[in-house]
């Protein structure tokens, strides 16, 4: 672990020495942009790039939660239906009247936090592998939503506030969704690098036993991390529901694997304890651009899946390899 700087010095050390994984990720972004510009001159236009960043912010918010959980050395597979819960409960609250309309966003996020707490309790207290407990929570969330909606996509539409933060534009025409992601991102960076919570997250990811012996409140931190991940996934769902102006059954399905891929492509170790938020930002933009360029190239759907998978493996083979046995 000699190469992993202490979290406390992370910002400082980043100025001195850029993590090669992040450099690679940003390099790949430039390559993708270059290839895209060969296909269409509008690929480099500010409108197009802003549009891409807006689309990226939904994934960015969800990937932020995923990153915190991955830093713990765990994983959150409940993203698909927690996203749907966020979107559906927020639109449902909008249907309750003026008060519900005002509370739509907090209600959606709150439901996500509640589900995250269930996963967190399973991991922290019952010591169930996170892959399993989040899978079960995903199934429960799906069941709850099927009962809630009657198996159809809900008819309630999203509140004006949800539409504003997802599709509106503020100063200089910057999409509000991007501003939301920026706020979430800055908060995440602060949380991870400047608070006890963040340091404990890195410590648990490196060695939970050592963190426990050093007196860190590991259980609380694990619970909080999963609650954050649930809340952010649900927030992503709220944004998506605002973007599409209604929630849908499978709205979260396309976000689980890209969220994990974005975090890992950004240089965060899937084993936990190592990674920085800048990398996740790079990973999210990279994944979004990759998906966009594949559709700009008018590639058939099967080709998009194949290229997407091959590119992820290829990039990880370049810079994400594990250690040899002899090391």
């Amino acid at each position, binding site marked *: 672990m000699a190469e992993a700087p202490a979290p406390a010095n992370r910002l400082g050390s980043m100025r001195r020495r850029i993590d090669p994984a992040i450099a690679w990720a940003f390099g790949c972004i430039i390559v993708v942009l270059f290839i895209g510009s060969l296909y269409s001159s509008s690929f480099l236009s500010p409108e197009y790039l802003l549009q891409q960043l807006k689309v990226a912010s939904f994934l960015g918010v969800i990937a932020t939660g995923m990153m915190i959980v991955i830093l713990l050395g765990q994983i959150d597979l409940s993203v698909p239906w927690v996203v749907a819960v966020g979107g559906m409960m927020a639109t449902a609250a909008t249907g309750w009247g003026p008060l519900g309309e005002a509370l739509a966003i907090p209600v959606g996020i709150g439901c996500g936090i509640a589900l995250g707490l269930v996963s967190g309790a399973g991991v922290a207290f019952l010591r169930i592998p996170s892959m399993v*407990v989040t*899978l079960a929570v995903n199934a429960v969330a799906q069941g709850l939503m099927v*009962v809630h909606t009657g198996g159809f996509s809900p008819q309630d539409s999203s509140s004006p506030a949800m539409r504003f933060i997802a599709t509106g534009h503020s100063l200089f025409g910057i999409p509000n969704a991007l501003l939301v992601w920026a706020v979430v991102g800055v908060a995440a960076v602060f949380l991870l690098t400047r608070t006890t919570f963040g340091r404990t997250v890195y410590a648990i990811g490196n060695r939970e*036993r050592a963190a*426990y012996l050093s007196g860190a409140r590991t259980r609380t931190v694990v619970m909080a991390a999963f609650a954050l991940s649930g809340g952010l996934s649900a927030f992503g769902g709220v944004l998506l529901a605002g973007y599409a102006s209604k929630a849908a059954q499978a709205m979260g399905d396309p976000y689980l694997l890209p969220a994990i*891929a974005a975090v890992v492509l950004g240089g965060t170790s899937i*084993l936990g304890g190592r990674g920085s938020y800048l990398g996740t930002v790079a990973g999210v933009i990279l994944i979004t651009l990759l998906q966009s360029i594949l559709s700009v190239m008018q590639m058939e759907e*099967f080709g998009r899946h194949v290229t997407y998978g091959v590119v992820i493996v290829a990039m990880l083979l370049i810079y994400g390899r594990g250690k040899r*046995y002899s090391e």
Partner: protein
Amino acid sequence: MSGDWSYWLREHKGTLLAFAGFVVMFTIYAANHPMGLNANVATTAANKGVLLAIVAMAQTLVVLTSGIDLSVGMVMVLANCLASSIVIGSPLATALGVAGVLVTGCVCGAINGLIVIYGRLQPIVTTIATGAVYYGIALALRPVPGGDVNASLADALTGQLPGGVPASLAVLLALVAIVWLPFRRSAIGRAAYALGSSEIAAYMSGVPIRRAKFVAYTLSGLLASVGGLFLTFITYTGEASAANGGAYTLYSIAAVVLGGVSLFGGSGSAVGAIFGALMFRTIGDLLFVFNVEPLWQPLFQGMVLLAAVCLGSVRLLRVRNRLDLYG
């Protein structure tokens, strides 16, 4: 001899518990089924159960090496699409088709294995990416659902043997005898268990880690393709359904956990996973028998899954030293 017995019991506890759970649930199911347990009811139940059991066996092989295969469902879908094109015609053509599907499965598994072994990428990320590739290929083979399969072979394998025994159970038994038992008894199989317990210790002891991993991943691909083949025999069509692939991947993990296989690797058996899969399927059928509103079924299934994984935490009651909780 009593020492041997208690050791044997401890080693197979997970499998035995899964078996007992399945027997209890199936008894309740059969006793309450409106039509009683006749051969047709048993055959339908067995076909669905065996399909998941085969995929769960595939997952077990990788999980034993402390990996995870998130592409099993996609390999199954790919095999399904391929089988719906080539497993048809004269007996010779059908046999060649079956061989082609199985070889494809082996190749998919081998690619996963090679990337994990020589690329030194984490199994979870690798199989997410290769899963996207396999799904893309499946989509290329079958952009729209369709195709056909040799009906006499399909009927023979999904129908009933003389005496009313479901033929699918014989298929499952054959798979255990041909694939699982030889693997379990071989030096390679023991190496897979050893490296699942502690990779570094296995490496230091000169265990053929790479060969064991490679065989485990390849056999996993093989079994997943058998699952796809079997799915084709049940449905008579091929469909590149991402939802189906994802669901089977997740269910296979659930079945493995219910079957007493440790997700940390090194303990459990494919036989346990088979009973886990059958139990998981019976839970779904139980809800049908008890006339639970179809809307509530996913929720109940999720709750049962959550409860089942929480039951695994009973072992925590025996932990004397809190440090043992933290790996």
